């Protein structure tokens, strides 16, 4: 912990004072926040058994919040937070209870990502935070499968098994 805090302090000091550029950021504003919503279609085929092969279409929703501080003309440190949620467009027709190894479905999978990054912007383009960049960071994901666990209530076809 002590080691981590030292590394973090050094990083913070470097981030704040290391790049004494005069005109960082967009029109001189170093701190920028961006947010957005994304909806992406996807196909999943992860429910194949020996006898059945399924391709199931789905939609992934994404909400993100991004805060960035330009520490140099072409360098920025940021913290990205995103929230994903997957929704299947149809229900599989196989019997998941009798399929070994599958006790949940990709239905209503929720995921939270926290991603501290350092972005290096392309010097032949605009100064940070515009243009292309290469980012280095750590991605910490929190997958929430609690609502994806196979229950009778979430799978109406098997409600009247008994």
């Amino acid at each position, binding site marked *: 912990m002590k080691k981590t805090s030292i590394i973090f302090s050094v990083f913070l000091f470097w981030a704040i004072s290391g790049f004494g550029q*005069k*005109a960082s950021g*967009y*029109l*001189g504003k170093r701190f920028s926040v961006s947010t957005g919503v994304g909806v992406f279609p996807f196909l999943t085929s992860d429910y194949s058994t020996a006898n059945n092969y399924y391709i199931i279409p789905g939609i992934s929703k994404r909400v993100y919040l991004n805060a960035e501080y330009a520490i140099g*003309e072409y360098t920025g440190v940021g913290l990205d937070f995103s929230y994903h949620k997957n929704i299947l467009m149809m229900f599989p027709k196989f019997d998941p209870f009798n399929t070994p190894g599958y006790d949940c479905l990709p239905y209503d999978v929720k995921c939270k990502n926290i991603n501290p990054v350092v972005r290096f912007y*392309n010097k*032949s*383009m*605009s*100064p940070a935070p*515009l*243009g292309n960049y290469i980012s280095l960071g750590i991605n910490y994901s929190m997958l929430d499968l609690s609502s994806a666990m196979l229950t009778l209530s979430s799978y109406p076809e098997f409600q009247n098994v008994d």
Partner: protein
Amino acid sequence: MNKSLLILLCLTLLKLGYSQTVDFNNYVPIKSRGDLPKEFSTSSLEKFQDAKKKISKDKSKIEKEALRDYELESSYAIDDILHSGKVIFNDTISNYVNAVMHKLMEQREKRKNVRVYVLRSSVVNAFATGKGLIFVTMGLIARMHSEAELAFVLSHEYIHYLKKHSINDYIESKKAKYNKGDYRNTSIDDKYLRRANFSKEQESESDELGFDLFTKTNYDISAATSALNTIWYYYLPYDSVTFKPSFFEKGSFKLPEGFFKNEYDKVDPKAFEKITSGTSTSSKKDDDEDAGEDESDKYSTHPSTDSRIEKLDALIKDFGNSGSRSLYLVSEATFKYIKKLCRYEIPRINLLDGDYEYAMYHAMVLLNDNPNSLYAKKIIAKSLYSMAKYGNTGHFNDAHIKSKYAQGHFQQLVFMMGKLKSQGISAMAMNYCWDLRSQNPDDEELNSICRSMMRSIVFSYEDRKKHVFYKSLADTIGPKIKRKTIDDSETEKTDGDEEATVKTTKSKKAKTVANNDNDNEEEDSNDEGTSKVKVKEYFKRSFIYWFEKDTAFANLYNEKMKDLKKKKAKVAKEKSKNSDDLKVNKSDIHCVKDGKVILIDPFYSYYEQRSYYDQGKYDAIKSEQYKSNFTDALNYVARKTFSEYEVLDQDQLKIDEAEKLSEITLLRDCLFENLNKRGVGLVSTDLSLVKQVAEKYHSSNIILTGMTIEKTKLNTLGTQCVGCYTLVFYPLFVTMSMSKTYEYSIFTVLYNTDLDDFRVSYNKQIRGKDTQASLTSNLYQILSRVKTY
């Protein structure tokens, strides 16, 4: 009605001519006055669209295309001239020339709307555009002998316009390019020949019909041939003046024997034509010479001047010159006055163009008429100084013309400069400039020049291992300097202090100790350590007069020596700092900080690559259309960056802002002069005028900025080949081959009038399209740097 109009025009002209009290001793360049003419305020795109509507649909396809292209190119080309700042209007010269044009137009029943503009150029030329604009250069007016000569030139140009020669010539060039009409199945040689003949026919037609028009006036028709004669001598200065070497011998400087050519080539335009066309006059026989002349004349767009003169002579004989004709119909006094104005303008233009020997000679002509003209003396000082600076930076040939291209007395001057070279001219310039400065100690320009000249000498010759300078100057500076001025012991003593403390005893010794040639050789063969001593001796020798007479000179020398020491100390530091792409001349005193800045004439150029293998072609229409995006972004960013700023944009001028146009031109000329001669580091030609404008706007910091954008194509063939090889990615490569990329660059320089130098220059290249976000972001980055440095 027309007569009364003409009388009114003439009266106005006379009033204008003499209401101006021009001080020729301290001459100031002419400025445009009054309202901006319509041509200046209408955009090029509007002009093009109006002209395009008038293209007849009955023409053939190639003619219609050629006419459209002609209108497009000419609209923008003419506007380039009009907006270059070289065109003056509503001034005495323009009004007079238009009055002469009006005299010619009186003879025509159907009058065309013709406007004549005077071009601030030293070139001897006049030309007409297809839109009824005739341009006459100051170089031509300065050489004219009478108003009638000017009238003939105008009548010749009027015929070019009336007969639509420029349009026809353009269509002809298109036909030749695309092998249409008479150019089908012809060789390249034949094409050139036909084009040249076509152009010559037009010239002959203009001469003949122009002469017809000219004869209908009461002008003396013999002026037609004298006008052509005037044009024939275009390569010479506008007048001839004899001069002696003593003219340049100021202070201790004496021109050695053999450096002044008493014999010179006689003035002969034919000989000049042969030299410029590469035909040697001496090695060929007469027959060969004639053949060479024909050969060089074959592909020319104009008939040879002597043949034109012959034809006109024949026409004059046929017509018969009656006695009632006059050389002047508008005003003789005004003609002489405007000719004088042009003659005073030309040396300044020569200086700006870097034609220093011409500038010097023209100034000598002016001094011949007006020996007290400080303006002319300063032109000579500036020319000598500029040539010395060019020489000291290793670019002497850029400032010097070869003596074979000069004739008459002008050749004597050119020869002398060529002989003196950089070292000799440095000594001559320093002595001349200091002599003039001692007569005008408060003149800011002369002080700047002397400081710069001294710095150049100290910095250029102090550290050299081989002091050729010293050796040549021992001869160059004359009898007084040929004597040993300072004995070795005393030299070492003063050099120990590294200052030039010239005592009165030195002058006594200078008169007594003779220094023969053997001594010189011995000294020159000494090692590096002692050669430093000799260079210091040189300074005392070549400028001994000023060291003895003027303590300010010694002080300036000592100051520059200290600067040199400081520079040496800073060299290592500067090298480490120069890793950035910004070139900075730091000075806290002149820092922009919270001060006001002037943003002059922002430019925007759009280039588009039609195919991968072509170069980007300038698109004038898009450049004009998209420029507003750039100027809007610039205004927005400037508002955020600077506490106070002013944009002087030529395209945004109101109709009553003619004075502002002159100011923009002056500032822009100064900046471009500094940009062009940047490696040499000259004091600006119009420094005092520029400072006046800067004071008017309360700012010494001037920013010139603009951008160019290029739309390029990817290599279609290459990408598709790679795509075929990797079939899976073929759609991706097809998309790539169809896509276009953008790259734009923003150019910015900050010029400080107090320093007379650029403080910051920046040229940033950015990949991608110039979106508003990208543009403002990059502009802010650049202007912030400009502000903080």
